[in-house]
């Protein structure tokens, strides 16, 4: 019974936490392809040899890794397996796994590597029962883990989502299976509004995950601005002011400089970038486009300007998305207060702070402002915080289906089509809450509507 496994799974296979080295494992038919995409490598890796490679995220260099390719069937699972040794930073590990998922891998379920090994006959058949036990216990303990985590607000959170979707599906199924009844059915606009509110609920939940993630792995904080505004000086000033965390990322091979500082328990990964310039000169444009990419990825953006500059000089290069940006008015030591306050007034719609990088004035206030920013992102006490990547991905998938459903509803597509995406969305929750059966939906219908001619 050789079952064709189509998915490629990915997971961290060394214990979580900051060790010197972490190993990420990929298994499945797309492992090799994923490794090539990850390392931007066009040639294939030769089996069973350790190779050096670099991982890039967007235009940014991420890490140097050692990569080993085990060709099927000569691997632990019997499938194509790639093992990636990277630096033991949670941040790097998460980003690499994120990338793999983006390229088409799915996060492995507990015990899934072992399970595949077994199914492909790599493990002694006589040990079948003990393996089954092992997997069951792993799944169950994972389940216990998540139910413990879910016991509080989390369980309620997911259950609420599930209830809402079931309610929506019932409304539509009612229309399809009981249209011969004397019942008024929900109008399309109502369905659309309800799907919309469901999507919003999920967004709120997903946001708690990205908060959890920045807390765990630090905020990516690039320093950008026009040339000579004092970015590098500020970078140094911040490193001088706060505790520097020795970065696990080797700095020698990059054209951006990255260091981490910590304040009040929050970690900021500062990046000194090339200058932003509104110019046509081609030599600079490569560096600039890299800076633009960096801006997009920023958790928090420090935009440095020279206090003596006038607004017109840099207005065009101020990033459009400003909710996560602080404008640093630098060189206060050599600018007269009147000019500074005039500029600050002109920038009143932004969050601004006046500093002198050179004289190290206002730097502490800046770091306080940065910490305040993180704290403001923190979900309120009552909110449940999403911590598991698998949960996050389930929600993300759910969102995609719900958006389909919403679009269909908007286009006045008939209910049986809308239901497909809603049922797919519901199935995303099944892994967290157990499977939903047709009876659950019918029960809901019979409970709420008077059926029967």
């Amino acid at each position: 019974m050789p079952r064709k496994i189509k998915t490629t799974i990915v997971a961290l296979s060394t214990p979580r936490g900051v060790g010197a080295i972490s190993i990420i494992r990929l298994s499945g038919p797309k492992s090799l392809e994923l490794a090539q995409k990850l390392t931007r490598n066009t040639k294939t890796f030769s089996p069973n040899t350790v190779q050096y490679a670099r991982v890039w995220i967007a235009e940014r260099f991420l890490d140097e890794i050692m990569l080993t390719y085990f060709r099927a069937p000569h691997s632990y699972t019997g499938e194509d397996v790639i093992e990636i040794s990277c630096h033991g930073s949670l941040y790097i590990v998460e980003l690499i796994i994120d990338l793999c998922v983006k390229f088409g891998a799915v996060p492995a379920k507990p015990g899934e590597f072992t399970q595949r090994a077994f199914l492909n006959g790599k493990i002694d058949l006589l040990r079948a029962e003990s393996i089954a036990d092992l997997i069951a216990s792993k799944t169950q303990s994972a389940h216990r883990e998540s139910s413990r985590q879910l016991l509080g607000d989390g369980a309620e959170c997911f259950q609420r989502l599930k209830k809402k979707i079931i309610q929506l599906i019932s409304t539509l199924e009612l229309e399809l299976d009981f249209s011969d009844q004397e019942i008024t059915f929900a109008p399309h606009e109502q369905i659309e509004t309800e799907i919309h509110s469901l999507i919003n609920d999920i967004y709120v939940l997903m946001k708690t995950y990205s908060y959890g993630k920045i807390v765990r792995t630090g905020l990516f904080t690039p320093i950008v601005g026009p040339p000579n505004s004092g970015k590098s000086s500020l970078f140094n000033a911040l490193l001088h002011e706060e505790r520097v965390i020795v970065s696990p990322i080797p700095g020698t091979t990059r054209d951006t400089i990255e260091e981490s500082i910590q304040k009040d328990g929050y970690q900021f990964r500062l990046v000194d970038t090339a200058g932003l310039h509104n110019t046509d000169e081609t030599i600079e444009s490569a560096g600039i486009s890299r800076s633009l990419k960096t801006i997009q990825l920023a958790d928090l953006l420090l935009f440095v300007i020279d206090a003596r500059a006038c607004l017109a000089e840099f207005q065009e290069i101020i990033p459009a998305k400003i909710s996560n940006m602080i404008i640093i008015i630098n060189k206060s030591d050599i600018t007269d207060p009147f000019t500074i306050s005039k500029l600050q007034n002109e920038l009143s719609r932004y969050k601004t702070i006046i500093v002198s990088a050179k004289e190290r004035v206002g730097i502490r206030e800046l770091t306080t402002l940065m910490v305040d920013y993180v704290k403001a992102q923190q979900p309120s006490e009552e909110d449940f915080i999403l911590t598991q990547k698998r949960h996050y991905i389930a929600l993300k998938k759910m969102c995609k289906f719900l958006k389909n459903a919403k679009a269909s509803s908007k286009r006045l597509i008939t209910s049986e089509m809308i239901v497909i995406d809603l049922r797919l969305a519901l199935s995303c929750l099944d892994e967290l809450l157990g499977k939903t059966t047709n009876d659950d939906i019918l029960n809901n219908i019979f409970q709420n509507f008077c059926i029967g001619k």
Partner: protein
Amino acid sequence: MKQTDFDIVVVGGGHAGIEASLASSRLGLKTLLITFSIDSIGRMSCNPAIGGLAKGHLVTEIDALGGEMAKAIDATGIQFRILNRSKGRSVWSPRAQADKIKYSLYMQTLLRSQNNLFILEDCVTSIFVDNSTLVGVFSKIYGAISCKKVILTCGTFLNGLLHIGLDHFSGGRIGEKSALGLTESLIREGLIIGRLKTGTPPRIYKDSINFSNTTAQYGDDNPFPFSFLTNNFLPPNVPCFITKTNPQTHDILCNGLDRSPLYTGIIKGVGPRYCPSIEDKIFRFRDRTSHQIFLEPEWTSADEYYINGFSTSLPLDVQEKAIHSIPGLEKAEIARPGYAVEYDFFPSYQLNSCLETKKIRGLYLAGQINGTSGYEEAASLGLFAGINASLSLKNEPPLVLRRDESYIGVLVDDLITKSPVEPYRMFTSSAEYRLLLRFDNSDVRLSSKGLQIGLTPKTVYDNSIQKKRLLAESIQYLKTHSLSPDQTNQILSIVHQSTISGGVTLFKLLCRPEVHFQNIECFLPPELSKRVGFFRDFGDQIEIESKYEGYIKRNQLLVDSFKSHEGIRIPQDFNYQNISSLTIEAREKLTKFKPETLGQASRISGVSPSDVTSLLILLRK
């Protein structure tokens, strides 16, 4: 025991029994149908209608597999309507009012003239089993009869108990005796029994109804037949009449609840929630001040009407008083009172996927005896059991219908993987692959299987092959042929859409919500368009399969989620009890259901994905 050369004995002449006995006799097996009375063959004991939501799909599937129900209703129906017309075509369902006298006569005539089929008026009271294999039946008058297979289709007759108010008496339908003894014989052989309940409304005399106080409802002007063989379809169009209850009706009914067999706890069986009695509806949904009532003619020039929506088991005087409070029924005279019936059934998890009992080889159960409700469900199961009993005798592989190819497949699979809490009824929402399971393509989906078995006429199969080819060909053509910008914009302006620059493929054009097949048909080669015109609404069918390609693909995702384990078989003697990696609940459920495949196992409630994984691993041993 009388040694006979009967291959198959079918017990019961209801909708399941008819299809079962026709299937086996048509497949060349010598078949004996035993029924209380020949007159009652094909009788519609509840409402005079065939089809309806999801049930209409079943009827066309029966037709595609060579059953009789579709042809019978086409020949004897008196009003035809497609339900759900405002929804997508996949959930359209044909429904017809039947002339129940003609319907029953049609079936009787057919059965009497069927080769290989013999009919005996008698009552089966027990079965004979030897070494876990069925060897014969015992009938009251005729005595012991040997045979190779038995299909029980006894409907509500097993220990049937009718209730009207606090009175109850034994019977299967009103005026007909119930079958005693058979249940006990099955229990002795180790089958497990359950009890269900269903109900029916009163019938009233036509000339006592004041129709001017009601609204007439006719069928479609251009009716659709059920059968793929029916041509030149010109059925009558006899109306139903709509009226409704009012607070006064509800008060009267409420005051009678102290004499209700349901509310006083006399009835033990569980009734269907989708078909509650009127007293149930009023009790559970108190804020509703009115419920719709349909008066349905029982035959063409009926002198009796069926009060659909008014199923009740309250005492006769309460029924009468409540009816009189309804507009149009002020002076209505009751021809037959409404009643509830309790009956034995055999929970269907005891059956394998051929509807044969796991305990007794050669014994098949089909219809209400499995815990289903509805003529269409019964007929589907009867046909399915009849076919599989026959195939087994002919040493041929069984008929398997997958969930993603037919409603009958869903029906059978649901039955064998579920513990019924109420009579099972087909819903479109039970079919994962609903978008492609249309009533109009049952032939495309199933007729090749029917032909191979030997029941489906060659013409139905040939047409289905043509339809399949035509669909593929048309879509191929649409995808590979573009219109000039002028032609494109000409169409867009017809459907009031803003023009575009550049031409697009016909397929892309058809995918726009506003564009319909009619708009592009003139751009097909005349020969192709002529062939499309040969099948009714075929342009619409091409349109939906193009327009909703994306949805159909995502629908496939829902199907894939259960399909992956379908091919993995579990030995019937597999011992779940000592497997520590299964939860206790899973062990119990799996032992009870004895699933044949891992797919079935995964659909049993209480069996979790991690249980399925464990099983998957253990099955590799």
